[in-house]
């Protein structure tokens, strides 16, 4: 268990999201708070809206109604580039397929995240190299496509935490890994978040990983009847 402050870093209220031309609510959450450095895991059946929730928190999608605050800022009240800048500075993301920039080197992938952070450019190299060393990546100039899957996962984690975000959103980060590597990868992600004091919201299908988190929510439990909302 980690040390947490009482201030919520993510605060969700009366959140509703319905895909265009759909009758069914994809996400319904009455209230959810995640405190600073808290690590929670979200589970649920396929299609229950876990990834959609993460995209809503990241401000990549707009809710049909309700609010999501990150660090006290209503993400969806920010328009255009302000929201993008906010996301770059406060939210890190890790994807199932890592979504690394191919054609770029390992360190360039980390730089790509730092480009949009508040960290001065002259400090980027030092920050990136320190992070890669911490995460055990000793080939900073290797091309992404030349790395093993496990190494790519580490780079994805490094990129997500590089800008010292308030919250890291992980969308099935171990789904592409063998079970034995999945535990190690999850250790890596959780440790990285703890080291910078970032909250972690992780979506997973793997029951073996649930106990590693401070809190567990089944998305279906957050609302009983989606059609009745």
């Amino acid at each position, binding site marked *: 268990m980690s040390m947490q402050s009482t201030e919520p870093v993510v605060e969700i209220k009366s959140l509703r999201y319905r895909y265009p031309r759909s009758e069914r609510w994809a996400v319904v959450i009455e209230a959810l708070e995640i405190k600073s450095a808290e690590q929670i895991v979200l589970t649920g059946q396929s299609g229950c809206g876990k990834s959609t929730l993460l995209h809503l928190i990241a401000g*990549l999608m707009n809710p049909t109604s309700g609010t999501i605050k990150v660090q006290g800022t209503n993400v969806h009240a920010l328009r255009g580039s302000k929201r993008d800048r906010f996301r770059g500075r406060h939210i890190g993301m890790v994807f199932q397929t890592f979504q690394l920039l191919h054609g*770029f080197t390992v360190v*360039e992938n980390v730089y790509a995240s730092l480009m949009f952070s508040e960290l001065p*450019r002259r400090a980027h190299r030092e920050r990136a190299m320190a992070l890669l060393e911490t995460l055990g990546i000793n080939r900073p100039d290797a091309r992404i496509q030349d790395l093993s899957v496990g190494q790519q996962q580490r780079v994805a984690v490094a990129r997500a935490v590089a800008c010292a975000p308030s919250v890291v959103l992980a969308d099935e980060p171990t789904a592409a890994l063998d079970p034995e590597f999945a535990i190690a990868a999850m250790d890596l992600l959780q440790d990285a978040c703890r080291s910078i004091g970032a909250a972690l919201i992780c979506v997973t299908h793997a029951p073996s990983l649930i106990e590693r988190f401070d809190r567990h929510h089944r998305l279906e439990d957050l609302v009983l009847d989606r059609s009745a909302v």
Partner: protein
Amino acid sequence: MALSDWNIVTCSMRSRWFSTVLTILTVAIASGLMTLLISMRSAGEDSFRRGTGNVQILISKEPGPLASVLNSMFYADAPGNPILYTQYEELILAYPFAWTIPTQLGDSYRGSPVMGTTEAFFESFEPAMGQRWSLASGSYFASPFEVVVGSAAAKVHGLKIGDSITLEHGAPRAMGGHDHGEFAFTVVGVLDPTATAHDRALFTSLESSWILHAHDRRESRLGHGITTTIDDLTDADRQITGIYASIGSRKAALVQVLGMLRSDPNWTVASPSSTVGNLFTVVSNIDQVLLAMAIAVMCSSGISILVALYNSMEQRRRQIAVLRVLGASKMRVFNLVLTESAIIGTLGGFAGLGLAVTAGKVVSGILHARVGIVVEPTLPMDGYLMIVLATIALSCLAGVIPALIAYRTEVVRSLRPIG
């Protein structure tokens, strides 16, 4: 070191290097073609004007002034209708010429034209305005059967002082010509280059030319084995094909003399510089077609940039979505794609200049070797700059649609795992 937008763009181009290089090449060819056409256009006219030198009036019996200028000054073909030398002598007494030079064309040496003329050709005629003749070696002809060789002709035929040559009757490309093998000419001088059509000609005295033709006439009448000297020439043998003339600096007299000569139906009178100007007015119509073609090629290169970037957008959709997740705004990714097309335009534009300069040198070399005139396709620096800027502008325009696709990339959809 940190990552910048520039790094992202160059990295993206590097990852699709083959398509990028081909696109740059397409732009370079289009831009180069355009540059070459524009520069050749002005250089060609300059070169033709240069070839008329300080001749104010060209008199002949050709069908028209253009044929007269092309044949007598640019050696396009042998002039058809001769002028008796006695007519020439009468003419120069009737008008206040500052100088006149009789010329006779009709013979050639291995494809190079041979002009019969007088010493005045080297004394009064300037092949390019303000540029007098000078010798690379030897001297001007002083006696019959001496020949002075233009710089290009000397180079092509490897002629040097003391060489003995024989001429062929007829213009370089004429049918039915024959060899004047019985008369050997000695090379006594090689001229310095003048960057005009005269560089590819050989020059000898009028008397030499007349003796060749008189010998043909006499041989057909008297049979083989005869000899012909200057004493055997009749008035009918003494023929010329053109007269270079100048009134000097008296403009009013020039207008008056031109008017009087033109009113005489026996003469074809040309003002060489204005005839060349007229020629280029006619040529400019063709020129505009070529220019339109170059613009069409430029447009097609713009489309190829569009297609290359558009096709790459499918591969780059995911990369753009990742950049958006990391904090890049829509406008920033729009600018990244636009920057890429601007880089393609810039590289293509400058490579095009390189191609145009190289091709210009090749074309110039060929023209000099074959036609004798020097066409140096150059533009003022701001002309080159304008073409490069136009290329960049066109490339940016072509990049707008792919940039809009990047701008409108749906992040969530683009990040969905494949399969």
